[in-house]
């Protein structure tokens, strides 16, 4: 392989700010007898994109994103512990990329949503197998890049969105579009995985700090 093989990793999530709520609510008609139902809804704010979005709910991109989030979290949440109940995850990005075409795959948004949702699910006290950390990656000019910015995404190269369970190294969700030679796949995957592990370090630190602070408050 004649690739330079160096990866660029940038872990700044300046784009979507997400706010989440998660709750368990008994839903009799669709309740599953042996595990919890995970329901994810994604709705972007109308002012979050360059052109004002008139239909923030129910459009294709929102539904697709909701489905991807649901599939990701069904892999991570220990649903067997809460039979016949429902876990709702609502994601609302407030600030998105400057010009977002409807058909453009937005790996960066997905990654930010997953990371925020992980923190929210942990905050709700819902038991999970592991953190779910996500990152996007791409391949531009012979280099694998992690955490693509809008400009890099618009360059038209292949993009990959990866959701990882860091402790076990298992992949919860992997989605890729545009053509990529199979030789390069390993590099790109490794770039995304490394970035996801970096995110995990950050999330872990934040959660521990929060628990530490909360326990101090309770102790008083």
């Amino acid at each position, binding site marked *: 392989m004649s690739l330079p093989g160096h990866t660029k990793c940038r872990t700044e999530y300046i784009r979507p700010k997400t*706010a989440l709520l998660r709750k368990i609510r008994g839903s009799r008609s669709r309740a599953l007898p042996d595990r919890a139902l995970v329901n994810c809804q994604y709705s972007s*704010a*109308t*002012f*979050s994109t360059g052109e004002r979005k008139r239909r923030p709910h129910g459009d294709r991109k929102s539904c697709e994103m909701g489905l991807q989030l649901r599939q990701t979290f069904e892999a991570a949440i220990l649903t067997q512990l809460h039979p016949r109940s429902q876990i709702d995850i609502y994601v609302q990005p407030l*600030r998105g990329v*400057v010009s977002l075409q409807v058909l453009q795959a937005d790996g960066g948004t997905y990654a930010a949503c997953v990371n925020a949702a992980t923190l929210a699910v942990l905050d709700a006290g819902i038991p999970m197998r592991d953190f779910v950390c996500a990152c996007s990656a791409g391949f531009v000019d012979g280099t694998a890049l992690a955490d693509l910015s809008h400009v890099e995404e618009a360059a038209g190269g292949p993009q990959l969105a990866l959701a990882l369970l860091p402790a076990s190294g298992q992949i919860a969700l992997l989605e890729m579009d545009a053509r990529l030679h199979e030789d390069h796949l390993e590099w790109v995957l490794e770039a995304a995985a490394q970035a996801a592990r970096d995110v995990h370090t950050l999330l872990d630190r934040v959660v521990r700090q929060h628990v530490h602070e909360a326990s101090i408050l309770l102790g008083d």
Partner: protein
Amino acid sequence: MQRFRTVEPLEYYRRFLKENCRPDGRELGEFRTTTVNIGSISTADGSALVKLGNTTVICGVKAEFAVPPTDAPGKGCGVFLSVPNVDLPPLCSSRFHSGPPGEEAQVASQFIADVIENSQIIQKEDLCISSGKLAWVLYCDLICLDYDGNILDACTFALLAALKNVQLPEVSINEETSLAEVNLKKKSFLNIRTHPVATSFAVFDDTLLIVDPTGEEERLATGTLTVVMEEEGRLSCLHKPGGNGLTGAKLQDCMSRAVTKHKEVKTLMDEVIKSMKPK
């Protein structure tokens, strides 16, 4: 104590009210800590995030072109000069479900529309680009991120702060092509004529008035009242959706408290805007 609060919330509250204070330590006439963050959403033309205690509302304003209706081209360059919309998504409180906007969201949207209309924050003429042909329309979207009572005050404040932050580019109509040419380099702030500030009250047991109710207090109250005040004690809007009756004297009391609140809010907003000026 927590169990008593869950089982008999009203009695729990009454015990505090007898001592003229509330469970969160506030006095009956005290407002929660207000925080404002202006201009954080770069994709919106103007934005503001307001936190009243736990209640969090974010407002994003986007400006678009529109053709004003032909019946009043000279006077008002558009009936719908601003389209407010309040969204209470399920993520802000477990009271709300996903789907079409519920009653509370629609009432809040209408309230904000009334405030804009009544107080004439922006003159229709200011949004006019070319009489009869083109005008600006401001879409004001308010999203509640955390619901802990007093949504109307937070929305009004967020809307005002966001409007103060809006910068519209200069637009000229090309005579030959009659297309609009937008000059993004030259932007100017909106001309905000008045500063309406809302103050909400909750009525307990027909007599006791408390200011800035939390979510729990709103649920236990027997009535609510919202007063929207402008500068110099000018009353803009009064919203009392049913509930038990209030005497005229109590109403006067509310209005004087609203005047004080207006001064406080105006000072806070001026401070925040001044701190942003160097940009």
